[in-house]
């Protein structure tokens, strides 16, 4: 019996290969949404349900819609360009290096992995003793690592303000008149 993770990973690879082969951008955008949905399934299998929520809502939902919105501004077909060898070699080598890098990582769920030996046991015990809430992830995100989450919220805020300033406020009356 093949584990479901393997099937999903194989599916991810097939989708990725198809996206790279397709010239039809609408189909590629839809396939990237499928890629996110299959990833969300993988995250669910790895017990990271909160990451799966985010992947399904952002990756499969909102960003696919943003891609489609962008497609309405440009053409539906990718321009045919001659196949070049050097970019392919660079991408292949980078991918191979990343693959070799994963061989050094501890096995999935290994209790002796460094991440489980330092601080994590404090968090697991502290969440029960201090907070009395079952969800350790929430305790780490909102309290133990509260500064980081504040920074992340500020990053999202800054991104939205940048979009507001450039795309919504930036295309004011003087630019809207000539379009």
């Amino acid at each position, binding site marked *: 019996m093949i584990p479901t993770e393997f099937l999903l990973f194989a599916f991810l690879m097939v989708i990725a290969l198809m996206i790279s082969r397709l010239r039809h951008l609408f189909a590629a955008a839809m396939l990237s949404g499928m890629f996110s949905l299959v990833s969300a399934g993988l995250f669910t299998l790895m017990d990271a349900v909160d990451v799966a929520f985010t992947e399904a*809502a952002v990756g499969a939902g*909102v960003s696919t*819609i943003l891609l489609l*919105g962008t497609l309405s501004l440009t053409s539906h077909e990718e321009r045919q360009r001659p196949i070049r060898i050097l970019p392919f070699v660079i991408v292949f080598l980078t991918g191979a290096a990343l693959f070799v890098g994963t061989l050094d990582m501890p096995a999935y769920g290994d209790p002796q992995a460094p991440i489980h030996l330092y601080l994590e046991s404090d968090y697991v015990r502290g969440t029960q003793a201090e907070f009395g809430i079952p*969800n350790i992830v*929430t305790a780490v995100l909102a309290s133990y690592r509260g500064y980081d989450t504040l920074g992340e*919220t500020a990053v999202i805020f800054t991104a939205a303000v940048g979009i507001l300033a450039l795309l919504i406020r930036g*295309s004011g009356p003087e630019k809207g008149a000539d*379009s």
Partner: protein
Amino acid sequence: MKISVMPMRDKIILRVVSRFLIPFILLFGLYVQFHGDYGPGGGFQAGVIFAAGFVLYGLIFGLDNLKKVAPLRIVEIFLAVGLLIYGGVGVETMLLSGNYLDYKVLDGADPRHGLHLGILLVEIGVGLTVASSMLVFFYAFAGRKHS
């Protein structure tokens, strides 16, 4: 395909199904927001799910109707209010002579209740900012026309 110009409101199946789904998406967003202490989720996930409900509404019923439901002016205000809530909780804990974002001092009698309150407030701040920024992205990209 033009999201802003060609609303899918004329397709009856899409309209009926989305009208049926959107309340549940929003309710699920609120559940993930306020149940984050106990189940999976928290402010970020809740904000994204909540915004996805609005985006679905905008897709089916058109950008103009979405702007009536969630005017950009109000979305902008919530965008800032979310981050202000987060930072404000930190300032409040300092005013109560604790460290920045040390939620225990929020309730002098029961530090554990203070922790719960702090996490709840901070997650609401994250949720507001994330949901608003997703909507800002949608407004910015769906509203653009050929130049």
